[in-house]
């Protein structure tokens, strides 16, 4: 496939692997966090870690929108579907997220809730137009990439004055999450969790640009390299990070210049600012309450806000006690450090958030990397 295969070329990968191995100093370790689930997935699916020297380690970050969705938010959506009898539209990944009382949206559907998988929130608008006698709620999740389409749907609903459409907004913000990780005690206490740099978000950065990361690079002295989601992008970014660390630099560099600039998509930003405002605080699964880390719908568009319309209240629900998702999302622990990884917690029956989506650290390791934990015939 043109413009995709070029970024998956095995020969180029081998060449890059040699350069990384040559430039990574053997007397030190390099710990880089890839923030995005898209990077985690690419690393696992293409076996990128096999091409890295042993002293270059990747830490999987919290950038999987499904994984960071707290139980309480899914409960809210389920309640709307089961008790308020709404048609609940959402993205496919959300359906299996475990909620309270062993429920998930998929299981609620089996109990009679009208839950529909859509590929875009424009489809949810269509469902609303086609079902004028029913309330239709779009369960909106995701980082900055999926926020502008939701904003557009709300604006469209306002233009049409569509009376039966509303949005349960759970959009979250990347920079606040990175900051939360950098501020967490484990990361701040020197030597406990060394993060030497970040592979910065790909699609998120097309919207917000590279500028928002400049603060971290400067304030926390951590290099950031924004990278595309193809495996060669990731390897190139790792090389750039190794070079920054070796040079003692901590800058924001952009590997993904084919899609990202410093300012980002200003039209999308303006649209998002028109429809949404910052939430004072939002609970992230794994990270807990993070101040100013999410968006809610402005009062001017309150008519299309499901939280206002149905007067639903958010109730925090603690994760399973044995679940180590929080520590894994901050890079403090590896999936295999968790007692329930691969035993009671599997992609079929996820206990914790990291096991839910294929982009989650645990699911990616379980699905693609598990054989590295046991001795195996390489064939």
């Amino acid at each position, binding site marked *: 496939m043109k413009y995709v295969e070029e970024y998956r070329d*095995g020969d180029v990968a081998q060449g890059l692997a040699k350069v990384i191995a040559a430039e990574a100093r053997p007397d030190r370790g390099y710990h880089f966090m890839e923030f995005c689930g898209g990077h985690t997935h690419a690393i696992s699916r293409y076996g990128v870690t096999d091409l890295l020297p042993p002293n270059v380690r990747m830490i999987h970050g919290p950038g999987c929108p499904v994984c960071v969705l707290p139980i309480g938010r899914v409960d809210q959506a389920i309640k709307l579907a089961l008790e308020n009898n709404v048609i609940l539209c959402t993205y496919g990944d959300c359906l299996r997220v475990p909620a309270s009382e062993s429920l998930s949206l998929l299981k609620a559907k089996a109990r009679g809730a009208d839950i529909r*998988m859509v590929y875009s929130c424009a*489809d949810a608008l269509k469902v609303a137009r086609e079902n004028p006698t029913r309330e239709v709620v779009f369960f909106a999740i995701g980082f900055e990439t999926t926020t502008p389409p939701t904003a557009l749907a709300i604006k469209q609903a306002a233009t049409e004055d569509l009376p039966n459409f509303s949005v349960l907004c759970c959009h979250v913000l990347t920079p606040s999450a990175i900051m939360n990780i950098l501020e967490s005690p484990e990361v701040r206490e020197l030597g406990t969790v060394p993060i030497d740099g970040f592979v910065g978000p790909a699609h998120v950065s097309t919207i917000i640009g590279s500028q928002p990361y400049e603060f971290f690079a400067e304030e926390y002295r951590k290099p950031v390299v924004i990278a595309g989601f193809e495996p060669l992008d990731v390897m190139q970014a790792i090389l750039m990070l190794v070079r920054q660390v070796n040079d003692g630099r901590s800058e924001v560099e952009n590997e993904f210049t084919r899609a990202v600039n410093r300012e980002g998509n200003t039209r999308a930003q303006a649209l998002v600012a028109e429809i949404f405002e910052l939430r004072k605080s939002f609970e992230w699964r794994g990270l807990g309450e993070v101040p100013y880390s999410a968006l809610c719908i402005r009062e001017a568009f309150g008519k299309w806000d499901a939280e206002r319309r149905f007067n639903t209240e958010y109730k925090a629900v603690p994760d399973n006690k044995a679940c180590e998702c929080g520590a894994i999302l901050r890079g403090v622990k590896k999936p295999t450090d968790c007692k329930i990884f691969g035993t009671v917690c599997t992609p079929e029956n996820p206990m914790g958030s990291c096991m839910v989506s294929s982009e989650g650290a645990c699911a990616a390791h379980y*699905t*693609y990397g598990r054989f590295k934990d046991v001795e195996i*015939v390489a*064939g």
Partner: protein
Amino acid sequence: MGEVKRGYVRPLDVKNGRIDMSHGSGGKAMAQLIEELFARAFNNELLAQGNDGTVLPALQAGERLVMATDSHVVSPLFFKGGDIGCLSVHGTVNDVAVMGARPLYLAAGFILEEGFPLSELKKVVDSMAAAAREAGVPIVTGDTKVVEQGKGDGVFITTTGVGALPAGRDLGGANARPGDVVIVSGSIGDHGTAIMSQRESLAFDTEIESDTACLHNLIETMLAAVPSTSEVGNAARGIRVIRDATRGGVATTLNEIAKQSGVGVMLNEKGFVIKPQVDAACEFLGLDPLYVANEGKIVVIVAREDADALLAAMRAHPQGKDASVVGDVLEDPHHFVQMRTGFGGRRIVDWLSGEQLPRIC
């Protein structure tokens, strides 16, 4: 008063009529539906016996009976390259054929939804009849039930097939051995992609057609060139396993074989044939073609010594012209299916978890 025509029954209004509850009642309406639609289309001597069951001829000496059943709930009912009718014939014929058996007869059960247009039912039944005729496997008995509107989705079809397995032949999933070679009969993921492209919520334009087809001729050709290990009587020779890679795709089929045989599999990503349109559709939908359903592709495990001969025989058949070697069987106590990626790394090709795409067949 007009003249009463004795015994006159107005013919079935196939053009504008719809299924109603009386078509499942056991009464006249049902008899008419069966006679004018099903029996007329499937028309064969065995079906014409017209009894509750069909009496079938005896098998040849030494042959054993193979039986397989498959229910079909695909949505949409009509898709590029096929429909639920021919699919229900192909699916079951293939299930019998991959066992190494010669498919002989089919039985068909229909669950019809009240309100389903007779014109569409006729299209489905005609397609089924054509597929059965082409395969040379007659539909010899059947059943029809009707459920109220909203309790079904147009039509569901269950087909059951029987076939004759020659003496000494064994192609069971437990026969794979370390050192064997894995072959796939052609491009993967075509059926699933064709279905997806026509789903209401997802419609996108693609040239891809479902690969739905009966594969018993291909399999017969293969077994004529390279018999099963049990027939050869030499552990280093022969075909070990044949499976059709339907739901869950090639990945799921190989995991099943690895588990049953107690072996591991190492795939080579570059060995697979994937049509560019399938590749592109999977790319933007976030699917992995290894897990996307096929309806006309088989996975074959063969002894290394016979791999080249088998590949040549497959490629000489139109249904196997794109056959390729995709991997090797290994010794592995964990029974993992792994893959060397085109990128140069290794990864697990695990069992499919959850549902990648509902109602694919």
